[in-house]
């Protein structure tokens, strides 16, 4: 039966190639051959074309070359009898389709207005987001790396009715999958169905309305291709590795929701190249023998009730989930869900209500804890009136033979995501500046404050059972009781801050590796020290220590730092050994405190990149939120593209924001005084730290001396500014 698919897909590919050709000719007539063309804010050009062919499409004339290649790839439609083998042809037609679709979609960015919002969530006028920029790709890509997003479902078309659309979306969200939406059936799309039902769309809720056209499927596949380049160290043009990377790492699949057109078949054939199978609601022919995908390629006639289950089975995807027994849905896809004020039943936050709130994890003796106990001290939600102002204390008490007080803040920091993953619960901040909202819908479904306890106990026992043997939760709304607990919490917060200040690289014997990203960047290894957190910003030394306790065979391994080889460069013998082993004998040494000499490698997850500005004799730092040009002549995305994948690139290094405030920041090159340029927003975020660090080393107004994009976007302007402010870098030893 797959000949029918082959014929349809090849026909579809021809149609799409013709459309691309037509659109391109029109664009060339209107704008000329040299018109610049790009997806916004990406270093990967048209990412499928770039990753498969290694060709940078930068102007319209480049697209002409690509269309020639498309035509060369397009096979004839299989003859009714005595056909030649068509599987290879169909897959080629599929890839040609993706190239043509990428051209069609890129040309849309020349339209006025651009039909996409280019935001992370829909605007009031437009729900279609279009291509994800590199910032989104990197932020979200990490979730694919660490497994918090097990894969994505590319949903094509529309469900038979809105209710089914919502049910399907929720089911996929509950599996923590990203849901990429494109295409329509008779003018109706699943994205619109969800919007009509008031479902929050956008990257925060993992429901991404890419495009109403089927061509928008390339935004999903372009995301996948880029993940291989950014995290997998796959070279542009190395199509085979890119596709196998996707087959073996990005567990995605296609859900075909309606009548399957030739164009859909063609696009699906493109997806199958990535090892992403197709599960269809309608009764189309199946392709069951395995090989290109892990298991079946096309499975059809699957009712909506069974679709997600079937898709996981066909893709070979196992989703490990802790069951949380609460009356609302619970999954990480709901972590980014917002609750608008008018939808809020109640909120807890000192700034807004002037009533005390806090959250606190503390360890106790084992006999002091009744495992699994949830106490509500005061009124629960069903007794609190709508929008009334109340206190809320969340106290989690844990005990365990391997529990250490150092692990308390680690557990406490998890409260944020643990609570956020409940549908209808919003959480922000931490400690006593936390802010919680509970939606009217959640309340109507029977959500109670005690369920906060249910969530925390389930998640803590699920993920931290190796250090927590028993746990209980107190939810406090009674104003008379809360004071006592509040004070204890505040004292502990202060104590913890003091302890953290005393943690230096010299004070410990052991550092931790982080190889979490090695599945994606095979030769990269992070060395996490007290004064240099992991470059993603998510793992500090204490996290590494706790993670090792939790899973002794996991990606965080202790390394005795050994004899110090160089205190200024930050080089230790034990660390070198670990780097040599961890990089699979590619690197012999690593300096934790230097950008110029054997700097730390990067996976691709870095929060910031430092790069030298030779003329200014200093370094600039750019974080991934800054999308504009920087004085080194490269945007963040370009910089990221050139230093990721586990290589040492002297003069460039990826790191966390936290590391900027460390006393060991670029110690070998003279420390924080080397910093000559930062984006304004990052500079402002770090203002207190920059001022404090400047003062410690004898400069009062370091914050003002550092240039930002409001005064300089190229190196010369940086120079002018530095001279004006008398920046110390100008008189330091030459960097090179």
């Amino acid at each position, binding site marked *: *039966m*797959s*000949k029918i698919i*082959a014929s349809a897909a090849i026909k579809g590919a021809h149609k799409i190639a013709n459309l691309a050709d037509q659109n391109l000719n029109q664009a060339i007539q209107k704008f000329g051959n040299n018109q610049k063309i790009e997806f916004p804010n990406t270093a990967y050009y048209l990412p499928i074309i770039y990753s*498969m062919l290694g060709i940078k499409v930068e102007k319209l004339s480049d697209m002409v070359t690509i269309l020639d290649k498309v035509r060369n*790839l397009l096979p004839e439609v*299989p003859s009714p*009898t*005595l*056909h*030649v*083998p*068509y*599987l*290879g*042809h*169909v*897959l*080629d037609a*599929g*890839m040609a389709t993706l190239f043509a679709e990428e051209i069609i979609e890129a040309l849309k960015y020349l339209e006025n207005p651009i039909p996409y919002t280019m935001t992370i969530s829909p605007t009031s006028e437009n729900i279609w987001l279009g291509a994800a920029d590199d910032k989104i790709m990197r932020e979200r890509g990490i979730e694919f790396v*660490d*497994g918090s997003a*097990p894969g994505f479902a590319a949903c094509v078309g529309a469900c038979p009715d809105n209710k089914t659309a919502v049910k399907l979306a929720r089911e996929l969200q509950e599996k923590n999958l990203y849901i990429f939406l494109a295409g329509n059936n008779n003018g109706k799309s699943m994205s619109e169905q969800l919007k009509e039902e008031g479902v929050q769309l956008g990257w925060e809720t993992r429901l991404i309305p890419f495009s109403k056209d089927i061509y928008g499927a390339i935004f999903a596949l372009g995301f996948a291709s880029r993940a291989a380049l950014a995290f*997998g160290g796959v070279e542009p043009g190395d*199509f*085979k*590795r890119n*596709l*196998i*990377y996707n*087959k*073996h*790492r990005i*567990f995605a699949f296609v859900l075909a929701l309606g009548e399957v057109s030739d164009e859909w078949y063609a696009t699906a054939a493109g997806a199958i*190249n990535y090892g992403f199978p197709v599960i269809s609601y309608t009764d189309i022919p199946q*392709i*069951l*023998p*395995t*090989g*290109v995908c*892990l*298991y079946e*390629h096309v499975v059809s006639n699957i009712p909506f009730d069974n679709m997600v289950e079937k898709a*996981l*089975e066909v893709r*070979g*995807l*196992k*989703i*490990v989930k802790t069951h949380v027994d609460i009356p609302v849905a619970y999954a990480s896809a709901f972590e980014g869900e917002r609750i608008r004020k008018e939808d809020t039943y109640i909120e807890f936050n000192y700034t807004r209500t002037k009533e005390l709130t806090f959250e606190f994890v503390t360890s106790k003796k084992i006999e002091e804890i009744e495992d699994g106990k949830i106490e509500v001290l005061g009124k629960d939600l069903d007794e609190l009136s709508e929008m009334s102002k109340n206190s809320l204390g969340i106290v989690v008490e844990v005990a365990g033979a391997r529990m250490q007080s150092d692990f308390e803040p680690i557990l406490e920091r998890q409260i944020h995501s643990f609570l956020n993953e409940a549908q209808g619960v919003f959480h922000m901040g931490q400690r006593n500046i936390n802010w919680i909202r509970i939606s009217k819908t959640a309340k109507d479904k029977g959500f109670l404050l005690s369920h906060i306890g249910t969530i925390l106990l389930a998640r803590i026992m699920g993920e931290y059972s190796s250090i927590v043997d028993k746990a209980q939760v107190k939810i406090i709304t009674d104003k008379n009781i809360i004071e006592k607990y509040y004070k204890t919490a505040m004292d502990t917060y202060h104590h913890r801050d003091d302890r953290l200040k005393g943690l230096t690289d010299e004070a410990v014997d052991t550092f931790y590796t982080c190889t979490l990203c*090695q*599945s994606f960047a095979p030769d990269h290894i992070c060395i996490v020290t007290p004064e240099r957190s992991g470059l993603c910003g998510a793992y500090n030394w204490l996290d590494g220590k706790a993670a090792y306790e939790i899973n002794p065979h996991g990606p965080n391994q202790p390394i005795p730092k050994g004899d110090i080889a160089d205190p200024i460069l930050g080089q230790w013998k034990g660390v070198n050994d670990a780097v040599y082993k961890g990089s699979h004998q590619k690197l012999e040494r690593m300096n934790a405190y230097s950008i110029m000499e054997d700097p730390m490698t990067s996976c691709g997850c870095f929060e910031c990149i430092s790069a030298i500005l030779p003329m200014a004799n200093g370094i600039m730092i750019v974080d991934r939120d800054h999308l504009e040009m920087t004085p080194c002549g490269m945007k963040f995305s370009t910089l990221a593209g050139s230093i990721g994948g586990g290589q040492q690139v002297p003069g460039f290094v990826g790191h966390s924001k936290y590391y900027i405030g460390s006393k060991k920041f670029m110690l070998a090159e003279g420390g924080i005084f080397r910093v000559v340029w930062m984006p304004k927003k990052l500079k402002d975020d770090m203002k207190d730290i920059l001022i404090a660090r400047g003062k410690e080393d004898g400069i009062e107004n370091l914050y003002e001396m550092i240039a930002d994009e409001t005064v300089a976007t190229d190196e010369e302007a940086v120079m002018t500014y530095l001279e004006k402010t008398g920046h110390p870098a100008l008189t330091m030893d030459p960097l090179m």
Partner: protein
Amino acid sequence: MSENISICPASLPMLDKAKNEGIETVFDRSKEMKTCPFGSVGTCCRNCAMGPCRVNVKGETEEEQEYGGKVGVCGATVGTIAARNFARMIAAGTAAHSDHGREVVQTFILAAKGETPGYEIKDEVKLKAVAKELGIDPQNKDKNKLAVEVGEKLLTDFGRQEGELTFIKRAPKKRQELWKKLGIIPRGIDREVVEIMHRTSIGVDQDYRSILHQGNRCSLADGYGGSMIATALQDIMFGTPIPLRSKVNLGVLKEDQVNIIVHGHEPLLSEMIVLASKDPDLLDFAGKNGAAGINISGICCTANEILMRHGIPVAGNFLQQELAIITGAVEAMIVDVQCVMQGLPRIAKCFHTEIITTSEKAKMPGTIHFEFHAHNALKIAKDIVKRAINNFSKRGKVNIPDESIDLIAGFSHETINYMLGGSFRASYRPLNDNIINGRIRGVVGVVGCNNPKTTHDFSHVTLVKELIKNDVLVVQTGCAAIACAKAGLLTPEAAKKYAGPGLAEVCETVGIPPVLHLGSCVDNSRILEACSAMVAEGGLGDDYSDLPVAGAAPEWMSEKAIAIGQYFVASGALVVFGVTFPATGSKGFSKYLFDEHEKITGGKWAFETDSIKMAHLMIDHINKKRVALGIDKKPQRVLYDMELRRELKF
């Protein structure tokens, strides 16, 4: 009348015609021939003038034969004599393929130097790939210069005295190590052939194990030497085959056109004949002579070569060479080397057909000789075509059987790789996967000749049908492929009709016939390449001998078949031959081939004349390999969490 002679629907009426007109064919001669009973079982030694010694083969056991039984005048035992004869067949087969290979390399070098108009370097991609295998960096090199380098390097394989053949590296690592340990890696192609001739002459190697040791080494010089070199360079020069449609059987001859049949083995001349047949002047000339065109078709491996690369129709296989002439429609049959019967000029005398010999190595009385040389190949080709056109008007009554059938051919190793994943995901993964999951039980190569001692084509077709019914994918070369093509097995439609459900489903997915045509007899080297690719793809063991595969030549007759069979046995495969087996006179030596040899290379010979039993012999062998691989049961579906995913390589 002739059903027990042939099952070929075009051959039967021609045989009737021959009988009616009193024309003697190979079938008649075979029927009349009383074959030598000693020679048939391998125990006639005529390697010196003290004999020939026809050694009595009585004796129930090896001991009785070797130590008590009759021996040759020199004392050679029946085991020694059988092994000598067997080894000499290997040497002859290797020599044939390798001399073919040598011609190809020499022409290839001349073509690259621009000294042979008509020839060119067509497949640059394959040229570069082969260059890399040879350790030559193809970067920024002119294709012709690169080709000269490649050709000259491969040419040294023929005369090398020490070291290893270049393409030995194509075998799996483990296999290479085993060969190294056994000491059977060929040093130079010519040396191994010469050494067999030496070792088997009077009073030299007189231990059948030792003789076959050299037999193994020499056969590998065929598979990984002459044959593999021929295939590789022919692909580069004439284009690597891709799937294409064509037709087969005598019905491809055209009543209103000049019919030229090319027959033999090397594509060097036939490629030029094809080119010449498209020459506008010659087409014009044909028109002036009353012909509607020039129709080229092929017989034997020459047919397979130009079928694979140009889709030129196939007139028939080995046993049809005489029958083609009996149609009265053939203006010229152009022959080069190998499998060309001397019966041809005798039959041609009854018709207007001219037999044109072209090789300096292969001449026959009663034919016309146009000696072919690479430097003026196209001119010679044109002269020959012109002569054929001139002959058109001399035609008598024409009797072309209305029998031809469609086929798909063109399955090179590169095609298989491409067709399973396209340009971007090309690999053997889907093949391996579907073998592992049991849709495909295994792969069998059914190759070789026709032999008039058995019903023409019957064993091929019966065997292949039984195999595909049992979900075994069949790959074919040579006259075996033509036999099955004539039975309609080389069409995608055959999958639904004849294949088991698993194989049929895979065929439908990929769009292939259940029987794949890989080319001529030197192209058996493509089967070696495919097996290497299967091992490299993973999941089916780490050596050829782990693979669920086997090989067969149910209607063999040529010494070349023995050489091919031996290089597969040396490579660890089970190889089953039909018709007759030229070693069964010696209990010891045949036991060595049929049994003990498996302990040495993992491969062994078998002999079975019943096609269905032959199929099940191989199916049982494949099943055994599947058990050893642990893939005899349907695999459990593994669902991957993050931890498991990290174990998947990319």
